[in-house]
Each structure stands twice: as C-alpha cells, then as structure tokens.
C-alpha cells in the first residue's frame, strides 16, 4: 500500500454537520465529522444502526431529503461538493463516486431488467452505445462471478437470489470505475457464506479499479478484512479513528472496546443500554451513560477528539 499521508487526500471532510429539521426539534445525524480518504485507501466507518453513518454517505452524494441542512466542507478531488451545482453533482454521481446501496431486496427497480439497469449508468456517463454497453455489462457480470452472465442480463430482480442481486448492485456501483466507492452495509441480509464472498469481491473490485472505498458497516469482521483504516462512529460523532490493525488490537475508546467485546469471537458481551436518540443527546460525552469507565467529568464536559498515537485519534478523557 502507498504511504498515503504523503499524497493529498481524494476526499476531505471537515467539520461536517448534517441536521434534520423536524418541526421544533433538530436531529443531529452527523455532528462535526472530519475525515480523509486517500487514493486507493479503504476506510471503514463502523457503528451501530442509527448512528448516522448512512447519512454521512448520502451527504457526500448530496442525496438527502429536503428537510436537511448541511454545513462544513466536503472536498472531493479538489471540488467543493457542498457548493457544487445540481448538474456538477449529477456528473459526479455514478461516474466519479459510485454507490453500492444497502438492502439488495429493494434497491433494484422491480420492473426493469437488471442488465438494463447496469447498462443505463454506462450509457449515461461513458457515452457507450447500446451494444458496447451490453458487452461491458457481460464483462462486469463475468468478473463478479454471476453465473451465465449473458442470460442474467435479461432477468428481472425478483428472478435473482439475494447474493446475485448484491452482485448486480456492486457491478452498478463500479461500472464507471469511480475514484471513490461508497458501500453501505454490503453484508446486510446475507448469510455467512455469501457475506464472505461479497467481502472478497468488494476488495477485488476496489483493487481492480484502483478506487478508494468508504465502507459503511456495523460488522468489525468485515472491516477487518477490507479496511486500511477504521473510523468508529457513535451518535453522530467519530469517537475513534486509526489504522485498522491498531484499532482492532489496541482500541482506545471504551465504545470501540465494548463493540469489539460484543463480537462472538471476543467474548460476546452485549453493551448495556441503548444508543441515544439523535434529537436528545446526553450532556458531556455521548457514550458516558453506557460507559463502564465513566467518571464525573464525562457527564459534564464534551471531550474533543485527540491524537493518542501515530495517526490514532480518540475522543475520550481517559486516554
């Protein structure tokens, strides 16, 4: 892997705040997030359901509902996404930034043939003709080990299995060899065998296209296989970020430790309590009500994220 810190980042997010205005209350789905993704790097964003990680991905594509407000800065390849026009954004989506959405069961249009749905993105951004685009789709399907690719092109989503639909979605996301791939919960709803295949496939695709990847998952085992670096998100904030090896071996934040301890192979201990609602966050450290090491300071002051080792950041008073 390249020494990333010497090159300039492909995606640089600074102080990103994504809020939803819901009548009088404000839902802070993403709160002051800063992160970089370097060329050809895989960054895994790990957190529980509802911590705001999908909103972060949608913020990068500016595909949020109308009642949202975004502040901060997202620079992609030198372009400020938060100031880009709708047309500039449209040209980025699918072409420069590919997205592989979660839930394979509902993310494909049920009335259109899957080959057509993949072809569409090629014809749009690569200005390929119908025939060339079709050839390309067959190649993609072959590479992704979709059995009988030429025939599968004419299938409708409901005729494919979950694993095959996931492959179709992957082929759609990587079709234009985007510089950045956003992958949202790629293993959701898949059984263990398929999960492994999909993870391997994603790694191969990123390498093949020399793409960077933002991998969103709640599953550390997926992150462990693919990620160069890991960012852990809790209640809209990044609480820890560092190299994958370091996070997995020497987790700094109590939340990361608890998450790792809850894995089946590492003790299987559940975290007590529930994630807070994003519209009524606890005072001080957001994890403090559930933290096993909480001290009086934790509920009074909100910790800042701080450097604790080589490129290892933690948001905790105790580290």
């Amino acid at each position: 892997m390249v020494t990333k810190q010497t090159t300039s980042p492909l995606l640089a997010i600074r102080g990103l705040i994504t809020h939803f205005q819901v009548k009088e209350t404000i839902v802070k789905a993403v709160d002051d997030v800063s992160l970089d993704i370097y060329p050809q790097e895989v960054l895994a964003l790990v957190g529980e359901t509802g911590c705001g990680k999908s909103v972060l991905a949608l913020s990068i594509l500016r595909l949020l509902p109308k009642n949202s407000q975004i502040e901060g800065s997202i620079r992609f390849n030198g372009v400020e996404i938060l100031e880009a026009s709708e047309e500039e954004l449209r040209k980025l989506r699918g072409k420069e930034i590919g997205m592989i959405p979660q839930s394979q069961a509902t993310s494909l249009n049920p009335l259109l043939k899957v080959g057509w749905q993949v072809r569409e993105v090629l014809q749009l951004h690569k200005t390929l003709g119908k025939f060339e685009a079709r050839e390309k789709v067959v190649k993609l399907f072959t590479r992704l080990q979709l059995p009988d690719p030429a025939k599968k092109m004419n299938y409708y989503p409901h005729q494919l299995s979950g694993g095959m639909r996931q492959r179709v979605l992957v082929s759609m996301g990587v079709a234009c060899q985007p510089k950045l791939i956003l992958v949202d919960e790629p293993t959701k709803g898949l059984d263990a065998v398929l999960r492994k295949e999909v993870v391997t496939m994603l790694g191969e695709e990123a390498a093949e296209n020399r793409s960077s990847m933002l991998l969103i998952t709640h599953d550390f085992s997926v992150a462990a296989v693919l990620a160069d670096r890991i960012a852990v998100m809790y209640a809209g904030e990044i609480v820890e970020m560092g190299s994958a090896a370091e996070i997995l071996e020497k987790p700094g934040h109590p939340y990361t430790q608890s998450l790792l301890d809850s894995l089946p192979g590492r003790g299987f201990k559940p975290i007590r309590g529930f994630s807070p609602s994003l519209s009524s966050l606890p005072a001080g450290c957001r994890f403090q009500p559930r933290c096993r090491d909480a001290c009086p300071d934790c509920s009074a002051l909100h910790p800042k994220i701080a450097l604790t080792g080589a490129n290892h950041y933690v948001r905790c008073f105790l580290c």
Partner: protein
Amino acid sequence: MWKFILKRLAATILVVVAASILTFGILHLTPGSTPVTILKYAFIGLEEIPTEAEITEITERYMLNEPLYKQYYCWLKQAVQGDLGDSCVYKLPVAELIGLRFPATVLLAGLSVALSLLMAIPLGILCAVKRNTFFDHLGRISALFAVAMPSFWLAYLLIIIFSLGFDFFPVAGFRGISSLVLPCVTLAAGMGAVTMRMMRSSMLEVMSQDYILTARAKGLYETGIISRHALKNAFLPVVTVVGLQFGHMLGGSVIVETVFAWPGIGKLLIDSIFAKDIPMVQGCVLLMATTYALVNLLVDLSYALMDPRIRYGRES
C-alpha cells in the same frame, strides 16, 4: 403466468354465471313469484286485476309450472345462444334492440375513459412532482370536489353554463360530435378525479422507494428518474383502479344517458324499467355485468403484462 390467467378466467366465468342468476332472479325474486304476482309487480301494476289470458301467457312464456332450476336452465340455454326473449314493448328480440343501442354506450364510455385518463394521469404526476406547492393544493382540492359532485347535478350545471348560457353544445340527443362533449365531460370528471388522486399517491409512494435512491446515485437526470424508473411502477396500482372505475362508469352512464337523452343502453335500461319491459331489463343488466367482468379481466391481464413479477414467476 398461465396459472394467473386461468385463475382470473375462472373468476370471470364465476362472475358471469352469478350475473346470469341475478338476471334470472329479477323476474323470480318478486315476492311470491306466482304468475299473478309477477304480472302485478312486473307488468301491469299492483292495482290491476290480471285476465285469465294474461296469466296463461305469462305462465307459458316463463314456464312457471316447471321447477325453478329447470326454468333457469332453459333460460340460460337460450341466453347463451343469444336469445334473450322478446321485448314486451317493442315486440322485437331483446338482443337485436340492445345491439342497436350498445355501440352508443361503448362510444360514450370509451371516450370518457380516454378523456379522464388524459387529464388525470399527467395532473396526478405533476401534483406528485410538485408536492405541497400551490399547484398541488389546487389539483387536490379540485379532485375532492369532482369526486363529491353528483354526476346528474354536474350535468345540469354544465348545461346551464354551456348550452344555455353560451349555446356551445347540444343539450340532448345525438347530433354529431358536439353532442358528445357534455356527456363525456360529465362522466369523465368523477372518474378522472379518483384516478388523479390515485396516480398522485402512487407516484409519491414510488418516489420514496430505495430503487429511486439507487437511480439518483447513478447520476441520472431527474426527468429520466421520473420517466424511466418511477412512472412504470406508479402506473401499476392505477391500472387496477381504472378497471374498477369502469364499473362506476357503467352506472354513471345510466344517469348521464338519461340526462342527455343519449340513445345508449343505460337509457334503454331505465326506460325498460318504467315500461315494465322485464326481458329488456334482464338483457341490459346481463350485458352490463358481463361487460364489467370482461373489462376487469382485461385490466388484470394487462397488469400481468406490465409486472414481470407476475409475468415470470419467481425462479427458485
């Protein structure tokens, strides 16, 4: 696919059979259903005293001495062969008279369906796309009023405004294309409003689906997202509603044809009811129920053609 078609076909046949029983029952449901009561209720009036000759005639014509199932069997056998008996008023075969009037109703209903779809579908899509704007509110309020407005009253309002006020369109009868305008508008208004509301809510539902987000993430133009990804999905529930609406249209045609003196089967039905021309009433009801069943069969089949989930079963 074949299983679906066969199932729907069987259901349609069941409905047509039920329609024939109902039609047969129109005469035989009369209280008591003895020759005298049938004569009194259906033909000569409650105060009249039937003559011996009339009783003999009615008994013979409807085989009232035979058991009920036998009467039905004979009636059905003739009906299937297109023999619905003779009209008591015109003394001509019912099938022939209905054949003369049916095209006028088909023309009226067909044009009204076309007109209502032509209005409702673009308006419904537009209201959904421009959700919560002034245009949307206006569209929804007008639809609400159009649904609540009784067709016969709307017809008179239109007559007052257009035919009497401006003298644009003929008020009654059939005098060329312009005669069609007011009846069609009257019939289309209610149906169009229902279809429009359905189209709007269906479109909104589709636009919030995951696959629309996928399409957005591909960088498609908004028009492409709507035309290629949303519309087809949004049409599906609307197709079913259009089929059901056709039934209301048949009922509505009775009213509209009466108001505008349109020489269709609805007017024939009402005239026959008042003339106590029972064979004619039976013929009209049977035809209307059968037409409705067939239209719904067609609608279901076209639904199956539009939806690959029905066209091709799940592959396991």
